[in-house]
């Protein structure tokens, strides 16, 4: 009896191993097959299709086009990273359901997820893996520090990278030809943030204290703000950096920011530290006209409103945003929520959008060769997009989206509402305004 059990379990494990190996083989063949048409499809489509017809039905669709998706799927930023990956997957599924890339014979897209773990070195090696896997283009990476390194690899290997989220100017400053960015860069974030403050206060905001994370993200955005603030008569009277991934409390930092008696406290950072900053401001009941995020990762998200309830009221954030006044966007949000049981944020929308940008380039290039995709990306002009930008998505010679601008949002009556610029306004801002009525 015991022998039989041992024999059966051995047999079972053998079958399992065999099955696993079989899967593996299938996986490698499809990847290899996908690579060859990537380079030859444009030149000789007939020859690549010929062997396929000998063993399968003639109606079998062409091999999928691989698109990489590189985000922090584990580690402290895994929440945002996984939502972005889900957003990208949703776009891929939609495009495939609508018949794939028509100019390539209806070739479907296949998303290849990769995990940067939030670390630049891991992100770099994962980018190399994606390129070795034969992706036609890839999207990523949520963090400026990671993107800087990954962009250099994309440039070296000639595979286009479409940045969904990563703000630092320095990524594209160095003259890359294979890297494109959909979201506003640090200069746009900082300068528009200063402009919004001026419009919001109508000249009453004279001094701000700036609390920001000390990675390249927070440092660049706060520097861009300080550079632009002067022309609106706004002075940065305190600049307080903090370590975003190791803080467990920001009360002392918030007290430092409030100590000089600024008109407004401005914050730049990620989600977790945003929560800590909001808590500290609420506990201290800081005596300011408003708390304003600039490219802040928390104050415009559904999670923030959901978790903080009444305490989230009246927080401002100037950030990229999906166009919440567009009914098409509402449908995407609802679909995401139904599919992943998670509220879609703008980061996920940007990843979703990035896939559509690449699909558009593939369609126009009629080729999945990275060089052709790059050339097509450079002439992108998508007016029908999902973001709150003043014009179509189009890239200048440095790869920046010419119409990438943030919007100013405020949590009003339990919802994140767009208040500036005026064409995108959903409701009038409450200013001065803090949850504790300061």
């Amino acid at each position, binding site marked *: 009896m015991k022998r039989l059990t041992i024999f059966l379990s051995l047999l079972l494990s053998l079958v399992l191993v065999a099955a696993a190996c079989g899967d593996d083989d299938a996986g490698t063949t499809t990847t290899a097959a996908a690579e060859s048409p990537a380079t030859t499809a444009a030149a000789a489509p007939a020859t690549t299709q010929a062997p396929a017809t000998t063993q399968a039905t003639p109606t079998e669709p062409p091999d999928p086009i691989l698109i990489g998706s590189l985000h922090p*799927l*584990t*580690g*402290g*930023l*895994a*929440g*945002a*990273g*996984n*939502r972005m990956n889900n957003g990208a997957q949703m776009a891929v599924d939609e495009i495939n359901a609508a018949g794939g890339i028509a100019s390539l014979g209806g070739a479907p897209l296949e998303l290849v997820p990769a995990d940067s773990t939030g670390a630049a070195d891991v992100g770099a090696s994962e980018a190399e893996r994606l390129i070795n896997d034969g992706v036609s283009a890839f999207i990523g990476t949520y963090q400026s520090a990671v993107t800087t390194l990954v962009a250099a690899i994309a440039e070296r290997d000639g595979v286009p990278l479409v940045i969904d989220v990563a703000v630092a100017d320095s990524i594209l400053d160095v003259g890359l030809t294979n890297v494109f960015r959909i979201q506003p860069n640090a200069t746009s974030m900082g300068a528009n943030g200063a402009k919004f403050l001026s419009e919001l206060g109508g000249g009453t905001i004279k001094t701000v204290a700036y609390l920001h994370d*000390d990675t390249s993200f927070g440092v660049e955005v706060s520097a861009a703000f300080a550079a632009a603030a002067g022309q609106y008569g706004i002075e940065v009277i305190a600049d*307080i*950096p*903090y*370590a975003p*991934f*190791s803080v*467990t*409390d920001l*009360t*002392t*930092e918030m*007290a*430092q920011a409030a*100590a000089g008696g600024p008109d407004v406290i401005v914050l730049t950072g990620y*989600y*977790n530290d945003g*929560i*800590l900053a909001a*808590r500290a401001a*609420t*506990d*201290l*009941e800081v005596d300011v006209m408003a708390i304003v995020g600039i490219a802040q990762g928390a104050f415009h998200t559904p*999670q923030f409103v959901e*978790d*903080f*309830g009444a*305490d989230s009221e009246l927080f401002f954030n100037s950030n990229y945003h999906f166009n919440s006044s567009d009914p098409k966007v509402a449908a995407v949000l609802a679909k995401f929520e139904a599919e992943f049981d*998670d509220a879609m944020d703008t980061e996920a929308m940007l990843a979703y959008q990035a896939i559509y940008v690449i699909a558009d380039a593939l369609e126009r290039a009629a080729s999945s060769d990275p060089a052709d995709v790059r050339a097509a990306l450079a002439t992108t002009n998508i007016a029908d997009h999902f973001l709150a930008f003043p014009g179509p998505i189009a890239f200048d010679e440095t790869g920046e989206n010419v119409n990438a601008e943030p919007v100013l949002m405020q949590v009003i009556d339990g919802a994140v509402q767009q208040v500036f610029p005026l064409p995108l306004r959903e409701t009038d801002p409450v200013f001065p305004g803090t949850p504790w009525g300061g």
Partner: protein
Amino acid sequence: MRGRSRTAAWAGLVVVVAVAVPQSAWWDMNHTVFAQAVVSGLLIGGVYSLVAMGLSLVFGVLDIINFAHGALMTIAIYASYLLFQNYGLDPYLSLFITIPLMFIIGVGIQRFAINPVMDAPVHNQLLLTLGIAIIIENLALVLFTGTPRSIELAYARNEFDLGVVTLDFPLRLFGAVVSLPKLIAFLVALLLAGALYLLIQRTQLGAAIRASAQEPEGAELVGIDVDRIYMITFGVGAACVGAAGSLVLPFLFVSPTAGATFTIIAFVVVVLGGMGSIPGALVGGLVIGLTQELTQLFVPGSTKFLGVFVVFLAVLLFRPEGILGRVRR
């Protein structure tokens, strides 16, 4: 010789502080900021102490460097969060669930994972605890996604009439703000530190734990089941982060790496306070909390932890056995 160099070190530190502080930035600034740094430092220091106590106990008794300590805290934070979300259970009441739960998990880990490698080389044990941490964090990622969540206590900003005085939270202390969740975390951490100290020093179980730590073979000879003591000790260590998890939930956030944030600091506290010393962990936690917040006033940002590691290095140099540690030979 040792005594004199120690005195010199302390005197040097006092002189440096006395000279540097009046000329520094905070002196000109509002005194409230200084008060806030002290208050915040002490409050967060209490939590550091509680986390470090469990780590210190496990290290002192089992000689195991437990890299999974922060991950165990993550389990406790999620447990409290889920109890709050699904059953509306107050995080402070969930202490009565998370402490025993983590004790049982700790006993289980010791029984099935660590006891078998007690005699293995130290790097094997290290890899094992690191592996447990990775498994826990990624399980949390799969089960709960990486989205950080947080809860708000309905009564965090209330007045409490205690008969003699009325406390209006958040409390003001010399201009510094004391939020209710942080105060409760601090007080409960002190209470648990006292309880743990009494358990180790005054009970028969504590005597057995100390015996197993000092001389496992001797303890075995006088009839102590050392393996069982090890299981209980690891369980108690895990129960410490069980408590810490419930206590930090109202003012921190929950995510798969929330507990890991405390791991490095806890190691520093353990070494600083003296390996295996419960009062040492308490003092070490408060010192580190204070150092960290006061450093923020001078050199903000990531360099906030500079002060922590300067103090750490100074202690290693001048008092390698830790502030309250016993000299090991």
